[in-house]
Each structure stands twice: as structure tokens, then as C-alpha cells.
């Protein structure tokens, strides 16, 4: 079909709109990166430049030498990895139970987990702070891992149940007819097929734990603070170290973006399934 004038104009306008939206969404990242490779003379100079005259990685060097950014990175990695491991393990078991068994109280338990996600962070924050303080794990990584499970477990169960419901029962039935018991059928048949879903769920948990700030700022101290808290701490009494801060920001989002790009297909299908089906 030949394109008519108004159609051409329309598609031109919609591309223009798309470009404008994408520029709006991505410009802050460009700006953060450009800031991170400027020298401080240029950064705080009289004119704002859109590409550094002499790109320099000085801010990155200072971030690791003067500020020891490796430490919060290690802390974040530890907390995120532990949260992911614990959440995925207990959630896979629970999701399997919800998907493959019909038992008394199933609906009640499922709704309980879903309800959990609805409590405001700040509602849990205050009593958790008091509890962690009392049992003596305030200012340790465990306090963060525990508090992150408040939102990661309910969410993972919901996501994994969805993935499991999509796997046909005939897979396990065939194995069980051949003499495998339920545990063997799960380990040998279900787990391998479920793996992409587990990886996507794990990536989501990891990203959320890596990014979390509200609990982290209250439950950590100098020694075990995570990246988001460390970034915020670059805003000092005397002003903000924008060079180091943006360098830290770039380092923070790189692992998240890499994980997201690998997991996105499964993750998106899992996330949208619940809402779209409804």
C-alpha cells in the first residue's frame, strides 16, 4: 500500500516523540557518565560542557584510593548474594507446594504471602530496627539480609508459582510412572526446566537488594555499609563530590544492567503474566 501524506507525517511525528522520550529517559545516564570523566576544574568551571575537553578517569581512581569504594561494593555483593540464595531456596520450595499440591489452608497461605508485599517499608523499618537492636544484629550484614527477605520472598513465591503453573504436569507424571519418586522427579525433570525462571527471579532479587537504601541506611554502620549508603555519604558537610559520586553511580549500575539484559526476557514474561491474564 502506498503511504499517503498524512500517514508519513504521522509516522514521522511518532518517531520524533519516541526519540524525545528515549532521550529524556537516557539523558541522566549520559550526564552522569560525562560528569564522572570530567576533571574537577572543568566540573566546577564557569561554563557547562557537554563533552569533556580532556576526559579523565581521575574520579574513578580517587573513588578507590581515597574513598575505598571496594569495601561497600564487597558488602553489597555479600548482602545481595546471601539474600538471593536464601530467598530463592525457600521460595522454590513454597512455590512448588502451592503449584503442585492442593491442601487445606493453601489459599490462606498464598494470600498471606501476597499481603506481605503490601506493608509499607517504613512500617516494618521502625520495629525491625528495635528488634535488630535488641537481639544484637543491628549493624551486621544479617540484619540487611533478613529485612530484605520481607519483600523478596513474597515476590519470588508469586513469580515462581507462575513459572511452575506454566509447566505441564505430564512431565512429572511420566517420570513418576517410570518409578521416580516426587523428589527425584522434581530434581531431575522440573528443576532443569525451571532454571531460566529461577535465574530471572534470582536476578530480580539481586538487583533489588543491591539497590536498596531505606533499610541499609538505618541498619549499617561505617564498616558494613552498602553501595547506596556509600554514595549518599559522598554528600558531605562541605559539599558534594560530584565527580566521585557519578563515578560510583556508573560502577553501581553496570552490574545491574548486565544482569537485567540477560534475565529480562523471562523476568518480563513472569512480571506481566499475572497482570495481563487478569
Amino acid at each position, binding site marked *: 500500500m502506498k503511504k499517503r501524506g498524512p500517514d508519513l507525517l504521522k509516522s514521522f511525528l*511518532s*518517531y520524533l*516523540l*519516541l526519540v524525545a*522520550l*528515549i532521550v*529524556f*529517559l*537516557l539523558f*541522566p545516564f549520559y*550526564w552522569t557518565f560525562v*560528569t564522572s570523566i570530567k576533571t574537577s576544574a572543568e566540573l*566546577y568551571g564557569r561554563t557547562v560542557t557537554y563533552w569533556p575537553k580532556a576526559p579523565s578517569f581521575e574520579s574513578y581512581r580517587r573513588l578507590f584510593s581515597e574513598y575505598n569504594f571496594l569495601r561497600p561494593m564487597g558488602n553489597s555483593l555479600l548482602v545481595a548474594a546471601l539474600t538471593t540464595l536464601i530467598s530463592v531456596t*525457600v521460595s522454590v*520450595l*513454597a512455590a*512448588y507446594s*502451592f503449584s*503442585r*499440591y492442593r*491442601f487445606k489452608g*493453601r*489459599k490462606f497461605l498464598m*494470600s498471606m504471602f*501476597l*499481603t506481605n508485599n503490601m*506493608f*509499607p517499608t*517504613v*512500617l*516494618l*523499618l*521502625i*520495629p*525491625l*530496627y*528495635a528488634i535488630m537492636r535488641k537481639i544484637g544484629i543491628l549493624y551486621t550484614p544479617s540484619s540487611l539480609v533478613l529485612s530484605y527477605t*520481607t519483600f523478596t520472598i513474597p515476590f519470588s513465591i508469586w513469580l515462581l508459582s507462575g513459572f511452575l503453573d506454566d509447566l505441564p504436569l505430564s512431565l*512429572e*507424571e511420566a517420570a*513418576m510412572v517410570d518409578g521416580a519418586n516426587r523428589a527425584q522427579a522434581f530434581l531431575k525433570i522440573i528443576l532443569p526446566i525451571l532454571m531460566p525462571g529461577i535465574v530471572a527471579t534470582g536476578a530480580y532479587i539481586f*538487583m533489588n537488594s543491591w*539497590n*536498596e537504601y531505606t533499610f541499609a541506611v538505618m541498619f549499617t554502620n561505617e564498616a558494613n555499609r552498602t553501595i*547506596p549508603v556509600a*554514595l*549518599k555519604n559522598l554528600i558531605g558537610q562541605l559539599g558534594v563530590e*560530584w565527580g566521585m559520586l*557519578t563515578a560510583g*553511580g556508573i560502577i*553501581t*549500575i553496570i552490574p*545491574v*544492567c548486565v544482569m537485567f539484559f540477560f534475565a529480562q526476557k523471562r523476568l518480563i514474561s513472569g*512480571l*506481566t503474566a*499475572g*497482570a*495481563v491474564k*487478569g
Partner: protein
Amino acid sequence: MIKRNSSIWPYLLVAPALIVVLTVVFIPVINAILMSFQNYDLRRPGRIGFNDFKNYVDVIRDPLFWSALWKTIVWVVAGVGLQFVFGFILALLLNKKFPGRGVVRSLSLIPWVTPGVLIGLMWRWIFDGNYGVLNDLLLRLGLIQESLPFLAREASAFPAVILTIVWQGIPFFALMLLAGLQGIPEELYNAADVDGANGIQKFFLVTVPSLKSVIYVTTLLRIIWVANSVDVIFNLTEGGPAYATQTLSVYIFNKGNSLNLGYAATLSIMLTLVLATVAVRYLKTMFRNQEGKA
């Protein structure tokens, strides 16, 4: 095979998750309720004890509570509303086939996976009154005559903070709505063509009704997230200047930081009650969907 007998296995499998969640969610929620009736200020640990409804009376009389509640409403309505509008536009644009669509779609989702702290700090730098790029752009375009400290002025701080949360939320709406759009059967549009519908009619008579439940669920979820969000505002303005950007969540967070835990708990119970109206709707819809699946 789905088992229907009364074996103990399903309970054993759920038990670990249940124990963790009971410990870190239910006990704290009960604790929060108890604390809300106590004089629980860690700066005066000797005086911790029940004080009946004193905190609640104080909250009702606290002008900062009412201002924070009002800020929360504006924050949610404007923030989620604009996220929805621009997210929908982005979803419609991405629903057309064009070369490089996959890459563009992935890139447009990055704000969604960016830490809230970093979002706050990146935009704080963009809005900066001395070296900020927004000022520079507006000056170059001749829209302003001199640099404005956007986040330091009461009139502009709240719009600036809302702009930031809109930026964060567009990708999520776009993602959910795009999945919805791709599920609309082509026949519906063909039928509308036969009936002679134009583009705008098709949008309101086919697209929007088909997406009703996606829009509903996504909006409810987003309302809860945005209302609860602390990190973006806190890292932009910490609730200032002069409480101009202090939503209820940020107010509670600030109170918690000042160690007046009893009062903070009371405030958070109030926030939970306000949000419960939204959460109940969301949960009802999700349960209905779950039953549909089972």
C-alpha cells in the same frame, strides 16, 4: 500430578518461607502496633512505656502530619498519573515494528532498574543551581534569565521531585502496557476497520477496554510503590526545603532517624491505613486471578 490427599509434604515445603516471613513481617507489624501506643523514644530510653492513645492524638494535632498526607496525595496522583500517560505513549510507540526495536525497548527500561539513591543523586546534580545542566539548557534556550536553584525553592522543589519519580516510573508502565497491547487480538482492530472506526475511536473503543485489567492492576501496584518510596525524595531534598517535599513516608523515615520510634510507628500505622484502601483492591483482583488459574 496434583495431589489432593492430606500429606504433610506441602506444609513442610512452605514452612521455611513461612517461618522467615512470620519473623520478619508479622512480628514487626504487631510490634509496630504495640509501639504506636507507647512512648518509645530511644533518646530517652528510661521513659519507654505505654501511653494509651497519646501518639494518635498527637498525630491528629500535628500540622506536619496533615501537610505530609496532602503532599503524599499530590505526589501519588501527579506522579502515577504522569507515569501512566507517558508510559502508555511509550508503549504505543514501541508496539510498532521498526528496526532496533528490541534494543530501544531494553534501553528504555534502565531507569526502572536504577537504584533509587542514584536516581535521587543524578537528578539532584541535573537540578543543581550552580553547575546544573537543566539551568544551562534553559539559559541557552533563553527560557530563563538567570540560574534557578530548583531544589532549594519551595515553589519548584516539589514539581522537580515529581518529575524525577515520573522519570523512574515510565518504564514500568510502558513494560506492562506493552505486554497488554501485544495480547490484543488483531481481529478486534479488523472488525473496527470494517465498522469504519478511525484511529482515535479504535484507541478508545478497542485498545483501552482491552487493557482495562492491566491498567487497573499496574496502577494500583504503582500507587503503593510510589506512596512508600523514600529513597528518591530523601536523596533529592531530604524532605525540604521547609518540608515542601516531605511526604508521609519521608516524614516517618525522618522521625525514625531521629529515634522517636513510637511516634514514627504511629505515623506508619496511619500510612498503612490510608494505603490499605488501595492494597485491598489490588489483593482482591490478584486473588480472583489466582482462582481463575487454579
